């Protein structure tokens, strides 16, 4: 068929560009059907970037720091407790004390450590309770570090909240704009060839038909991964499919050689 022939012809002429465009449109289609999983991934990466307030606990190696850790994790208001081995602790201590002449066998090297991270919304009274609990649990031989990374109010910026509720939409919007622009640029480059096909091959709307084929192919190809990934909503891919076809129609209709 004429159009498939010309389509392959164009593809063969600029294989890199066409592949790029193909993967781009395909990617946007797939992305548009993945609202839930994308939004979850965005939220997760935002969470992990968030800094929780924390303090260090140094516990004499004679005590069992792992046991203390297990106890602390159970407390409400404790986000995470990280165990730091004797080696890690002594390394840290050495770094801090390297300018001060302290004997190699300083008793400071016999400590294990815990890094206790607290929830963001824990009130000061709760923090005090937790610190007291640690003291009671370990006894006199505990060293408590001061509280670090206390959240400031402006840290919870509007941007993060925005991304949390509109992350998928904003990325989809940006991706769509980029892929549509690339699409328009490539079609514009080829508009003279389409004109010639129309002028000399008794065909009409060659560009529109070729790209309608191209976009449909992208759409059909995106159905496979979308089905595999258990897509819940098909509205995104369908809407984008229509947007691309409309852009194609409007753009290619007016390309002529003047």
């Amino acid at each position: 068929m004429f159009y498939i022939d010309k389509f392959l012809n164009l593809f063969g002429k600029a294989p890199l560009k066409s592949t790029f465009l193909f993967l781009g449109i395909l990617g946007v289609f797939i992305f548009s059907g993945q609202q839930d999983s994308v939004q979850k991934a965005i939220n997760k990466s935002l969470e992990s970037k968030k800094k929780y307030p924390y303090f260090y606990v140094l516990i004499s190696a004679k005590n069992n720091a792992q046991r203390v850790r297990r106890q602390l994790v159970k407390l409400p208001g404790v986000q995470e407790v990280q165990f730091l081995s004797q080696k890690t602790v002594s390394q840290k201590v050495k770094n801090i004390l390297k300018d001060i002449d302290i004997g190699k066998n300083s008793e400071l090297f016999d400590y294990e450590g815990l890094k206790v991270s607290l929830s963001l919304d824990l009130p000061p009274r709760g923090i005090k309770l937790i610190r007291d609990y640690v003291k009671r649990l370990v006894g006199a031989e505990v060293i408590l570090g001061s509280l670090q990374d206390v959240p400031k109010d402006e840290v919870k910026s509007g941007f993060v909240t925005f991304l949390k509720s509109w992350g998928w939409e904003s990325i989809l919007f940006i991706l769509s704009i980029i892929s549509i622009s690339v699409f328009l640029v490539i079609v514009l480059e080829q508009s003279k060839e389409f004109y010639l096909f129309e002028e000399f091959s008794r065909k009409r709307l060659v560009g529109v038909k070729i790209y309608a084929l191209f976009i449909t192919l992208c759409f059909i190809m995106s159905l496979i991964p979308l089905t595999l990934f258990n897509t819940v909503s098909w509205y995104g891919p369908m809407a984008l499919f229509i947007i691309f076809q409309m852009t194609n129609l409007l753009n290619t209709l007016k390309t002529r050689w003047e």
Partner: protein
Amino acid sequence: MDYGTTKALSAINLTVQMGEVVFLTGPSGAGKTTLLKLMGKSIDPSSGQVNYHTDPKSHFIGKVYQDLRLIPGNTCEKTLDQAYDRSIYKSKKLFLSDRNELCRILGISDRLKLKIKEANGGLKQKVAIIRALLTKPSILLLDEPTSSLDLSNAKKLYELLSFLNLKRGITVVWATHNKDLVKSFSGRIVHLEKGKLIHSGHACFI
């Protein structure tokens, strides 16, 4: 016909019969190109209309415009292949034999592998003309097709076109500012000046 505030053509009333050979003459800026593009439906008139008194489906218009409309990166051969259409040629073989015959007549068979950007003006003009002829048009519009050709090449082209006119009844409209060239050809001469039709008649009566 207006371009913004420029009046390129005014009150033209011209009828071209099927199977006729017409030369559009006139000095530069007279409106030859504009009239030709109107006939080819490449532009729309700002007032008045262009009518075909035949079924539009039964005729096909071959066009050779002044800018030739060639893609610099393509070879001459590839450019000619743009005219290959399965609805006119039953096989590529028939198309190629037609193509080779036309290239032989206009003497460009040995230069088909050249790219358009490497070709000289005459070769480009011939490629554009052959491409239009290969679409088997019933109407052929030519805008200054011989501006880069010498007299003997121009005569060769005229002979080819009058042969096709006799054999296939192809209608030819040929625009040129070179009045002297046209005087030795037979056909109707339509003379334009400043967008107005000055006269229309056969060479022998002028």
